[in-house]
Structure formats: C-alpha cells, structure tokens
C-alpha cells in the first residue's frame, strides 16, 4: 500500500505538503518499541502519540504514513484514531485545554470553571479555537483527580483545584 500521490494537510486555510513524521530520531524511537511487543500493530497507539506530539494533530496523510510504517491499512488506522478521544483529527490551538466536568467536579463548580476558561481564552464555545490560535478548550469526562476539583489539563500539564478566579493567572504561562 502507498500513500496518496500528493498528500496535503489543511492547516489554517493553507494546504501544505505532509512532511513524514517517521524519519530520523522519531523513526528510531518507534523502532525501539518493536521488541517490546509481539506484533507491530501493538505500536499503533504509541505511533499515533508520536504523530500528535510532532504535528499537534493527526491528519489523513499522517494516518496513511502510520499505516504504511506499521503495515496496516489506512482505514484500520482511522478506525482506531477515531475511537480514542485524545487524538485530534483536526488542528487545535497552540495550547489544548481539557476541563473535567463529570459529576464529582460538576457538583463542586466545574461548569463555572468552563465558563471562565471560555471567556478568558476568547474561545467562546467548547471545541472552538480562539481567534489568535492560542487556545482550544474542551470538556472531558473524569480526569481521575476528583478530590481536587476542578482538575484541568493544559497540554501535558495536569493542574488541580482550578477555580474561576485562578483561571486568568494560570493562562499567562501559556503564550
């Protein structure tokens, strides 16, 4: 199987050619995982994480590339990508904010934290990216830190006990 002839990625309204992710050091990191699993397919979730780390999201051409590297079909890889909520199938802001609003946080005021985040980031609504491209805010189900409401994830930073009042100060660290 081969990738499309002229793979392109739509990013910010401009079509840019897909640059392969699995070359050099990234390919070496993936290959170092192979001996840890009896099948190449088992490296699919780690490979998708590497794509997202490198590109911020997982595009169709990237799916084709992963499929080729791991000897899977693009349709199969797409099926897996779309099952897991943490993989982005479209571009997101430079900083990706996930707010827990499941019951334990909900009763402790998580919905007010969401409102404060939407306002302070300028995102306006859940899932939207702020006009300056800086933030995307989404609601997520239980982050597993229910004793410290409201927990949020900004990129890979796990932040506990967020309140509407602490939101503006928190965001300053993320340019």
């Amino acid at each position: 199987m081969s990738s499309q002839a002229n793979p392109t990625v739509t990013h910010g309204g401009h079509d840019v050619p897909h640059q392969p992710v699995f070359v050099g050091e990234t390919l070496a990191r993936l290959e170092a995982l192979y001996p840890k699993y009896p099948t190449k397919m088992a490296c699919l979730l780690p490979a998708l994480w590497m794509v997202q780390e490198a590109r911020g999201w997982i595009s169709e051409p990237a799916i084709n590339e992963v499929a080729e590297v791991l000897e899977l079909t693009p349709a199969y890889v797409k099926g897996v990508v779309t099952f897991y909520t943490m993989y982005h199938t479209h571009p997101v802001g430079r900083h990706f904010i996930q707010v827990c609003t499941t019951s334990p946080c909900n009763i402790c005021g998580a919905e007010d934290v969401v409102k404060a985040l939407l306002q302070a980031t300028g995102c306006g609504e859940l899932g939207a990216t702020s006009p300056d491209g800086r933030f995307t805010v989404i609601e997520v189900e239980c982050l597993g830190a229910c004793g410290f409401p409201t927990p949020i994830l900004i990129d890979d930073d796990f932040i506990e006990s967020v309140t509407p009042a602490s939101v503006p100060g928190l965001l300053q660290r993320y340019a």
Partner: protein
Amino acid sequence: MGYPHPSHPKETVVLSQYFGDAGARTYDGWVERGGYAALRKALGMTREALIEEVKASGLRGRGGAGFPTGLKWSFMPKEVVRPHYLVCNADESEPGTFKDREIMRWTPHALIEGCAVAAYAIGAERCYIYIRGEFTEPWRIMSAAVEEAYARGGLGGNALGSGKRVDIVLHRGAGAYICGEETAMMNSLEGKRGNPRIKPPFPAVSGVFGMPTTINNVETLAAVPHIINRGAAWYKSLCLGNPKSTGTKLISICGHIQRPGNYEVTMGTPLKEILYDMAGGPRPGRTIKAVIPGGSSVPIMTRDEAEAALFDYEGIVEKGSMLGSAGLIVMDDTTDMVYQIWRLARFYAHESCAQCTQCREGTAWTTKVLERILAGKGKQADFQLLLDLSENMTGKTICVLSDSCAAPVVSGIQKFRSEFEAYMAGSREPAMAAV
C-alpha cells in the same frame, strides 16, 4: 505520612505510608524504606508457594470486581509453553476514584515491585502497565522509576541477580473509559479499538496477543509486596469481623466533603467514621443527602444507608450498593439529584463503545429522557420508560458499562423520586432548555 492530609489516627496506613514523601520515589529511597525485599524473597520462592500465600491472605481485586487475587493467578497454566503476560490496569477512570494515581505518583517502585512479584508468580516474563493518557504526571514518574529499576538491576534479564527475567513496559492509553475493562484493555494494548471481548475465552486461557494473561489493578499489585514481607496471616488479620474482606483499602473521597482525598482503612471500618471523623463531614451548615460508595457505577445510597454501612465488600452490598473501586462521591442537601443522575448518564453515553445495542441506544436514550425531565417536559410515564431502559441495560451486554449507567438511574428513581416529580409538576424551575 498521607496526602493531601496527614494520616488520620483511625486510618490503617500500609500502602499510603509514603504518600507525600518524595524521597520514596527513587530506587535508593525505596530500598531504604524496605523496598525490593519482597521481590528478592519472592524470586527465591516457587510460583506455587507465592500463589498460595496470596490466596491465604484473602486479597481481592481492588479495581472494583473484588475477585480473589490468588485464585485469579491460579487460573494461569502451570506449564509455560506459550508466553504468559501480566497486565497492570492503571487506567483509573471511574468517576470518584483517584487512588491508583497517588500510588503511582508517590510510590512508583511499590507498583513496579508488585508487578514483578505477580509476573513471576504467574509465569510471565513481561508486564504491561496500561496508564490512562490523561495521567501525564504519573506517566513521567513511572517512566523514570522503571528506567531506574532497569539501570539498578531490579528488572531485566537477571532481576535482582536471580537469573530470572522480569520486564516492565509502560503503555499509554488515549482517552477511553472503557479501556479500564480488562478485555477492552487487551484490545487496546494490541493496537485495536477498545471494544470489550466476549468471555469465554477468559484472559488466563487467551488474553492479550492470544496468550495466557492476568490483569490486576494497581492497588491490588501494590498490596502484594506487603503480603510477601509480612505474611498472609498478618494481612488476613487486618479485618474487622468479616473474614471475606481482608486487608486495607484505599478510599478516595470527593464531592461535598470538608477534607477530600485518599484514606486507607481496615476492611470493615464503619462508613460513618470515614465520612465524619476522617474526611470531616459535610460543609458547615450542610447535611449529607446521598453517597455513591464505589465510584459512579454503583447504586446511590441515602445518608441513612451510608451511615449504617460497614465499609467492606459485603457490608456495602448489605446496604444496597457495592464497594466497587471505593471512590466515595458525597452529595449534600444542595445537590439536584436529577441533574447529577443525568450527568452520570451522559458520562456513560459518551463512554459507550457502541458495540452492544442495549448500551449504545440505552445510555443515549436514558440521557435524553432525563434531559426532557430537566427541561420541565417530563411525564409520569417517563419513570417506567427509564426503568425499562435500565432493565434492558442490565446483564444483557458484553461488559457492564450499561449496567453501570442503570445503577444510579434505578437507585435514584427509587430513593429520590420526589425530585423527579418536582420537575414533572413544574414546582421546580427547569434546569435546562427543552431540546
């Protein structure tokens, strides 16, 4: 120690002894605190003797199901003709539960040691620790600890100089509650969508990669070294009267409570002591209305039921619910029960893998009917509709996700019916706009 609060005198501190003690995170720090002695001892025992010891301790699975751990291990083939695998379930995602996170954050080597002991006991040379994708901090700490354990010879082809191989591989999830279900986890590890599998075959016969597999929760595995060090009799003696529930249990408490956090108690401790003495009771001027004792997937208890319960597997069942993962969600008299039951239903609808019709349709329609009630458009007939949906979601699907959606709905209607009726009668302002 205790984290985020100092340990309460009524706690029995075993697994949580070093919570809050960053010095316990390193290999040397762990060894100074008595670490890796259990692994050394275990590697010198026979597999059979280890399994018998854990069986005799009475340890039961701490992930939620409460299945006897030693018995589970004994289902693995005696002879290792194909590779055996251990999978550690670190996908902690059950609303209200955040205990495994603290084990990984503060005592990563306790988990590594427990995994290594268990892997050896079941004849596995490799253990996969499946950590949920959102746990970025535990991932970093566990990664550093595994790397250090290899560098120091605790893991690898000659673990602790025993000549035996124990490998640990960390695997990151990507956001799916259902992957905490053991067969879904195996599919996810294999690079597939996290759909649960039909059992049989059971994992001990055909598990991950089609090989004999045992899956244990983080807390279960972290308890194992203590049993090896101090003996099954000691562990079994940690019990307040009911010999079916032994040892200590980490409890996460959250919601409307003064001191949320993790507490460790002997099995059988009165729930009232946990709620009021350890966690400080409700906020000033408030009273507790409801408690969900085992993570969100179990029936809701009223305050009276909760205050009368003994906290162990059987004690909670006796009062109409289940111990589950021991994630206690406390709701006080300000709580809109209909709204919170809707929020739970929405959680299950979002997390359904959608392969079983009863779950895919049932969780979604339950959510919609609850939205209708919250919008002030509910009818008396909606009670029966919700109960019919719940009936169809209970015991009829591949896994228990839809049963978990039904539990709060059915118990909520039974115990807080008047709150639903207030929305239906228009005596309560609609909580959301009609869809």
